[in-house]
């Protein structure tokens, strides 16, 4: 079992195979970044598929985008960017020992995630009602382009996978918030907040690419 080194104050702990707390912090941060590379590559496969079929059927993607509510997408973009800001602020406040402000920022970040998912819920519901569904479930009768089911395949795969990441991110921020309320973080130790923050920013960044590609290609 790992031995945890603790100083007298109990605020400066790190696992036995590290030299000091900074060593542990930098190592963890690099791990998170490498993991983010894998996330980007996974979405990369979808983006490559998107570009191939967009090049093959530009009209389909144009038509597909016209069925999306770009205002809702834009709202969600703003919400996510705001949440990235509050996420970054929470780390800023923890580093300065302003714990209650940090708590507030983490709560706002989670709320932004909820707003994003609620907007997404309304968007999905409207698509489902109109039969704008992927592949074999597609039953919208006024489709001009034959490949429109494929477009909605991409729409649901890309936003769905992203949505799963938003929910994961919210849970992780919830976990960080819980640990923060227990007083585990301080200006010398905030690794988990930093790591979850990086994850949350990447999830936002992916949305920033998804939004123009899916909603604004028209």
């Amino acid at each position, binding site marked *: 079992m*790992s031995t945890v080194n603790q100083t007298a104050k109990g605020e400066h702990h790190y696992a036995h*195979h590290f030299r000091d707390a900074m060593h542990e912090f930098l190592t963890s941060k690099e791990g998170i970044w490498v993991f983010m*590379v894998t996330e980007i590559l996974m979405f990369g496969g979808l983006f490559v598929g998107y570009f191939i079929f967009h090049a093959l059927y530009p009209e389909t993607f144009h038509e597909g985008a016209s069925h999306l509510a770009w205002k809702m997408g834009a709202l969600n973009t703003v919400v996510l960017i705001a949440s990235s800001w509050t996420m970054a602020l929470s780390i800023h406040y923890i580093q300065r020992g302003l714990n209650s402000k940090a708590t507030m920022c983490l709560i706002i970040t989670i709320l932004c995630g909820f707003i994003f998912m609620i907007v997404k819920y309304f968007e999905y519901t409207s698509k489902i009602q109109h039969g704008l569904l992927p592949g074999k479930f597609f039953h919208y009768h006024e489709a001009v382009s034959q490949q429109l089911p494929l477009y909605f395949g991409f729409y649901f795969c890309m936003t769905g996978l992203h949505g799963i990441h938003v929910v994961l991110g919210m849970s992780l921020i919830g976990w960080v918030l819980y640990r923060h309320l227990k007083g585990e973080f301080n200006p010398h130790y905030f690794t988990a907040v930093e790591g979850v923050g990086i994850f949350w920013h990447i999830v936002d960044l992916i949305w920033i690419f998804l939004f123009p590609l899916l909603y604004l290609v028209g």
Partner: protein
Amino acid sequence: MGNTHASGDNYINHEKGLWSWLTTIDHKRIGLMYMIVILFFFLCGGIAAMLIRLELFASGPLFDGNTYNQILTYHGAIMVFMVIVPGIPAILGNFFLPIHIGAKDVAFPKLNLASWYVFMAGAILAISTLFTTKIDTGWTFYTPYSIKTGTAVVTMVMAAFIMGMSSILTGLNFIVTVHKLRAPGMTMGRIPLFVWAVYSTAILQVLATPVLGITLLLLAMERTLGVGIFDPARGGDPVLFQHFFWFYSHPAVYIMILPAMGIVSEIIAAFSRKTIFGYTAIAYSSLGIAAVSFFVWGHHMFVSGQSEIAGIVFSFLTMLVGVPTAIKMFNWLATMYRGSISFESPMLFAMGFLFLFAIGGVTGIMLATVGLDVHFHDTYFVVAHFHYVMVGGTLMALTGGLYYWFPKMFGKMFNEFWARISFVLIFIGFNVTFFPQFVLGAMGMPRRYADYVPAYESLNKISSIGAWTIGVGFLVALYVIIEGLMSKRIAPANPWGAKTLEWQVQSPPTHHNFEVEPVVTAGPYEYR
């Protein structure tokens, strides 16, 4: 921490009981846990291989076609996803990478344990398909058949996805460990070549596996939602699946072979008692192979209808892989030149690797040639080629590596005589099995068929007899391991006189590997 351990205390008896193993975050114990399950899966995949050769022993059907397709698929899927891809990094990499660089553990020990559980979850899911509708697509899950077949494709694909996640987490752990946890004085120019190889592999695992992940997810969605991305009826393209699949799976071939090359570097230096020739060249050629491997996937698709220009470009890029590979071969040979070579069993396996991998590599260059590949595509020539690389390369090195490090891992000596017998059986059996398959392939015998015309019968008989010889050889190797574990022959700290760090600590190592953090002042192969 920091206390001097009473002699006899080591990582195996540091804590007791099954629970202490299932919850361990000691990289050495996790390596052993991988070893147990991977050797078991190797046995399963091996049984499937024996059944394949039983069917092909004579012309005329023994199993029906569906059963044969299922056996073939399980052989491929088990051997690739559950044995060869995780094999060396997860067993020997886990055990020795931290010790090699003078660290007490990997960067993220809990994540390391989680990787094992994720791997087990994927493996159990994969095995569970045996009790449902099974799977018959071949390990490559090619569309459109994988969309249409009524077998358990989604379950198997999710299993491969989950095992891929485990592979990513292991790779991530190793990259960060090599970057951040090297002991003082352990510069990147002083890490052993095994570490360079596993590190290059880790980069491939991290960069390529996510693409496999999304490909498999898309295939699962194709089957459940009928998304249409791989379905021409909906405007999709089945060949796109091949592009996506090989974009991962070609680098995966190097995920399978690079760690083997690392083991061979260690063994050849140790048993030639000579400073390795061209350390820098071998180290950077690992990175070179890793880099080139991302730009060669199209050589699996010369007859898929991709453009001729693409074919020619992929052909040249593929031949480029031969350069860093040959650099390694020549450096190993130069290391042996005028060395004080001794032929203990690990060295026999390393030399067997050189011989078989050379054949596997050269036939790879033949297959990279577009004109020849049009003839050889989907024949037994291809089967022989990749078995020379994966069995003749990776599994020979894995077996040699297990023998080489056995004294360190368990503190016991294995029986050298029976270890050599296992080498002779595996080496001869291997050539008897797969060399005739080159000839069969050149004669035009297609792969993956349950039956063949009588003209191919005599060579197939030879091949099957060879396969059973390999089977016996690996059983002997298993006996060597079990007999060694139960024996009372205590291993010294450094039975081979090797110079890397793991041989400077006691056998088996203590819980923390090093009681005092080592300070490194020289390279890993300062023999003479």
